[in-house]
C-alpha cells in the first residue's frame, strides 16, 4: 500500500515510553544476572567477581534430581504435544473441511486463554477424580495439554504457507499418500515442526503453577526446586540457576524463531 501511514515514532512521548518498557522488563533480569557473579552471600551488596555460586548450583544434588525430572517432563510433553499438534494441523488444513473446524481450533488453543491457575486446579481435580497417582505422569499429561497450542501455531502457520500443488505433484509422480507426506509435506513443514517443538519444550521446562499443583510428593521439577530454595533463604545460587535457565530459554526461543524464519525464506523464495 502506498498510502502514508501515521508514524508512531513521531509522537513526543514515544521514546520515553519505549525506554520505560525496556528498563522495566529487562532491568530485573540484568540485576539477577549481575549478582549471580557476586563473591558475597548477598543479592544486594556487590563484593567482587566470582563463579563460586555457579559451581555450587552445578554440584547441588537436589538440583540434579529436579533438573533430570524437568528434562524428562519437557521431552515427553513436547514430543507428545508436537505429534498431536502436527496431526491437528494436518487435519485442519489438508483433507476436507471438518464439521466443527472453528470450534476445534478454539479448543486446541484454549490453554493459551484460560488463566493458568484455573487449568492447574482443573487438572488436579480431574486427576484426583479419575484416581491417577500424582507424580511425573500427571505432570507430563498436564504439560502435554498446554504444549499443544505452542507447537500447533508455528506448525499450522508453516503448513498454511505450503501450496497444495506440491502434494498434487507428488501424487502425480506416483507417490502414495504416505510417500507424499514422508517426502514432500513433512520436509516442507519441518522448520515449523522444529520451531513448535522447541517452543513447547521451553514452556514445559519453565512452568511452575500447573506443575506445582499436579506434582504430588517426590516429583520435583527445577522451577519447583528454585521456589523451595527461595523460601528458605535467598542466596546468589538462585541467581546463578536463574541465569542458566534464562540462557537456555533464550537459546531455544531464538533457535526456534531462526529455524522457522529460515524455513520460510528457503522455501518461499521463488
Amino acid at each position, binding site marked *: 500500500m502506498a498510502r502514508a501511514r501515521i508514524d508512531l515514532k513521531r509522537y513526543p512521548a514515544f521514546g520515553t515510553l519505549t525506554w520505560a518498557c525496556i528498563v522495566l522488563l529487562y532491568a530485573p533480569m540484568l540485576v539477577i544476572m549481575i549478582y549471580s557473579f557476586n563473591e558475597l552471600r548477598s543479592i544486594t551488596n556487590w563484593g567482587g567477581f566470582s563463579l563460586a555460586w555457579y559451581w555450587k548450583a552445578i554440584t547441588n544434588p537436589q538440583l540434579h534430581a529436579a533438573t533430570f525430572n524437568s528434562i524428562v517432563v519437557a521431552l515427553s510433553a513436547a514430543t507428545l504435544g508436537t505429534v498431536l499438534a502436527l496431526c491437528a494441523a494436518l487435519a485442519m488444513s489438508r483433507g476436507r473441511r471438518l464439521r466443527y473446524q472453528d470450534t476445534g481450533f478454539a479448543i486446541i488453543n484454549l490453554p493459551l486463554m484460560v488463566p493458568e491457575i484455573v487449568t492447574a486446579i482443573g487438572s488436579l481435580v480431574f486427576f484426583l477424580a479419575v484416581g491417577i497417582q500424582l507424580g511425573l505422569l500427571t505432570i507430563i499429561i498436564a504439560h502435554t495439554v498446554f504444549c499443544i497450542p505452542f507447537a500447533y501455531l508455528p506448525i499450522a502457520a508453516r503448513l498454511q504457507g505450503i*501450496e497444495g*500443488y*506440491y502434494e*498434487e*505433484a*507428488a*501424487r*502425480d*509422480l*506416483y*507417490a*502414495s499418500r504416505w*510417500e507424499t507426506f514422508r*517426502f*514432500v509435506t513433512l*520436509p*516442507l513443514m519441518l522448520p515449523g515442526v522444529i520451531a513448535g517443538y522447541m517452543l513447547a519444550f521451553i514452556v514445559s521446562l519453565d512452568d511452575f503453577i500447573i506443575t506445582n499443583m499436579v506434582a504430588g510428593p517426590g516429583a520435583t521439577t527445577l522451577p519447583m526446586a528454585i521456589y523451595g530454595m527461595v523460601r528458605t533463604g535467598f542466596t546468589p545460587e538462585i541467581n546463578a540457576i536463574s541465569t542458566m535457565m534464562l540462557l537456555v530459554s533464550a537459546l531455544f526461543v531464538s533457535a526456534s524463531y531462526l529455524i522457522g524464519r529460515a524455513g520460510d525464506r*528457503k*522455501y518461499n*523464495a*521463488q
Partner: protein
Amino acid sequence: MTTQSLRGDAVGIEQVTKIYGEGANAVAALKGVSLTIGDNEFFTLLGPSGCGKTTLLRILAGFEQVSAGKVFLFGEEIEQLPPNRRPINTVFQHYALFPHMTVEENIAFGLKRLGREPAEIRARVGEVMEIVRLGGFAHRRPGQLSGGQQQRVALARALAPQPKILLLDEPLSALDLKLRQQMRVELKQIQENTGITFIFVTHDQEEALAMSDRIAVMSQGEVQQLGTAQEIYERPNNRFVADFIGDANILAVTVLGDDDGSGYRRCRTAQGMEILCAGSGAPGSTPHVSIRPERIAIGAVGSMADGIACDVERVVYLGTNRQFLVCLADGLKLTVLVPNALRAGSELQPGDKAVIHVPPGTAQLLKD
C-alpha cells in the same frame, strides 16, 4: 459415441459433466464434454479463462472426480484409479517444483516412486536433462533458477517416468514472448521424438494453432469445435469459434438458396449485398457469416474487374500487414488485411475511394 469406438484411442472422454459445490453455489465447470484423443497426438484444449480446461485436465490426472460421464485410458475406465496409479504426468501451471530438492532429485522423484534401479534412474535423469537442455543445473535448487529454467525442470520431471499421456496446463503463459516462441518449437519436437500423447491447455490461440495436431475449442464448459488448426480457422462452425480464433468480420445474412454453379449458398447481407457462402443453411434462415480479413482483396478504383466500391476509413500499419477499415456504399463496414509485401493498396489513404473483392466461398456460414 459408444464405449466400443473408444478402444483404440489413448483417451476417451464420454459425456463428462463436472459440478463444483452444491445447491445454490453449484458451478457447472463441464457440461457433457465428449471427445477422443489419439495415441501420439498433440492435442490442445483452447478456450478463454474459466471455460473448464484445467478442470478437464484435473479429471484426467485424477485430482477431481466427474459428476457424471466416463473417462477411458486405452479403453480402460480409469475413474477408480488414484492419481499415483495413472500412467499420466502433469506439467503444472505454477510448475510445483519441490523447493527442498535439487533439480536432479526433482526429476528422479517419479522414477524412485516407481521403484526403478538407481543406475537406471541416473541414466534416465541424465537423458531427460539432455532433452530439455538443462545440463549443468543438476545440483541447483528450483529457487535458484529463472522462470524458463524452472519450466524445463517441470517438463523434465514429467517426462522422466515415460508416461503414456503428458498433461500441460498453460506451461508457457509465465514466459516472455521470445522464450515462449522458442519453447513452442521445442515442445512440438519433444512430442514428436518421444511419441508421448500431449494434452496441452492454453488460452492463446496462436500457440494452439502453431503446435497442435488437433484442437478442441472450449467455452463455458462445452466443446464448441474439434478439428485441425486449419479446419478451425477456415471453417469455424459457430460465432464463438469464429470470433475467438483470429480476427473475423461477422455479418448477419439471409440465406436465399443454393447457387447452382458453385455449390455455395447465395446469401444477402442486411444492407443488401449478395455473397456466396460456404457451409449449410436453409433458405429463408438468418444466420451469421464470418469473413477473414486477409481473404478480402482491396485495390484502387479500377484495379479489379468485379470490385465493390467502398470508402477507406482507417489504415493501420502493422509491420507484416496493413489493416484497412472500409465502408461499403450500403453502410456495411469490413476489416481487410493485406500483406505489405504484396503492395496492394499501399497507396490508399483514409478518405480515398477503393474497391474490394470477396471471392466466392470465403464467407463461412455459422451456427449461432
